[in-house]
């Protein structure tokens, strides 16, 4: 097995530029979650000072966790990724306005995000969809939460402290994209299979 690249959050420019599509990594430190509603909110009215957490250099994880109350706070009990493509129309703006160095989710993203990764120095990380208990075990604690009342626990922004959280770089800051490679290869096979009768 390949030894993963151990990354500490927040990420630096050189962390990001050193990562290549295909690298296996682990994340340690603080990251935030955000899915459909957070993206819409952040992109529509970008005001950095309104977000109670420092997003610059960190990773935004596409995740709507199952949380339970624990010791006066919250604990994530199941926290796998959600499909990233749904927030494609917002992501480039969010990366630009909030200075993120990593986007994490599942399934990859589109052309707009790919360009933004290159332009602003950011990577896309894929982590394993459906492996929610396995991944929640790498979240040490929920440090904070924003928009809980308004958006509910699924759509809120959680600040998580993670340790050894596993992911794979699938879109790097140099324009490489594993999802696109797989899709192009499968499209060639698909085209063979549906050739005229």
């Amino acid at each position: 097995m390949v030894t993963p690249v151990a990354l500490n959050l927040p990420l630096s420019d050189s962390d990001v530029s050193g990562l290549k599509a295909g690298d296996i990594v682990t994340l340690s430190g603080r990251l935030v979650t955000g899915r459909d509603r957070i993206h819409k909110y952040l992109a529509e009215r970008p005001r950095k000072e309104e977000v109670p957490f420092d997003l610059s250099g960190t990773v935004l994880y596409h995740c709507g966790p199952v949380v339970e109350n624990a010791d006066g706070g919250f604990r994530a009990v199941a926290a796998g990724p959600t499909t990233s493509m749904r927030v494609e129309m917002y992501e480039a703006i969010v990366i630009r306005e909030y200075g993120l160095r990593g986007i994490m989710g599942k399934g990859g993203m589109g052309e707009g995000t790919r360009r933004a990764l290159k332009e602003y120095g950011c990577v896309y990380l894929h982590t394993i969809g459906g492996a929610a208990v396995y991944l929640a075990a790498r979240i040490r604690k929920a440090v904070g939460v924003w928009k809980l009342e308004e958006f509910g626990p699924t759509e809120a922004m959680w600040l998580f402290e993670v340790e050894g959280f596993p992911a794979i770089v699938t879109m790097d800051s140099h324009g490489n994209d594993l999802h696109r490679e797989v899709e192009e290869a499968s499209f060639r096979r698909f085209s063979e299979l549906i050739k005229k009768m």
Partner: protein
Amino acid sequence: MLKLRDGIVELYKKVATSLPPDVEEALRSALPAEEEGSAAASSLSVMLENVRMARETAKPLCQDTGVPVFFVKVPMGLSQLDMKETILDATRIATAKIPLRPNAVDVVTEKNSGDNTGAGFPIIYMEETRGGTLSIDLMLKGGGCENAGQLYKLPLEELCAQRDLDGVRRCVLDAVQRAQGRGCPPYIIGVGIGASKDQVTRLAKDQLMRKLNDANANSDLAALEKRTLTEINGLGIGPQGLGGRITALGVKIGANHRHPASYFVDVSVGCWAHRRGRLIW
């Protein structure tokens, strides 16, 4: 009904926190098919480890505990209205107790109901049965894979899909090609064919309740299920869409009679975390 309610809460718990044995076995058998050390093989290993952890800790194996879909066979004489109330009560209790993620969102106000109940939520299909046995099937259908489904109206020139079983095959391949890794492969594919849109989408969901080793009683459909599965796995999308040999674990096809003018095909995509179970009462 109180005992039944608690039985349904237990059904929720079993379905949310474990995989059916046939699906787990299929994932296990997929592992040696993938190259050692590949992203496909390590993804499968993590999935299996996650299944074990979820079962042992009784936590939801995926954070998206989905839209609950009930298929209920109600014996004659048992009230379907009472049945529905009992399912709603059980849903509220299960959401708080397991816990499930609250997923029911009001389309107008955007408020989450907080307890997985709401307009048309959960989805409950009921039919009367002559036997004396109440049978409740539950599927927790995740949003990611539900979004990957497609509805087709044949003929469809862009796929060279005519109004025949080969046309159906082309639709299934197209749906998987479009889904790529976004709905959490390896997939389980349910297909419904028939005369109207509403009916084929339901029929496709029914197919997702069949066990993976369930052979289609119709030999032509059985052959089509087998062929499309092989062809899907030839696409190379792989577990998690990162490339590999196993993109689907099964294809199940159901067909109703159609109208001479109509030929609808619905392809419903189930993720690898294909959570379904049955309560017999």
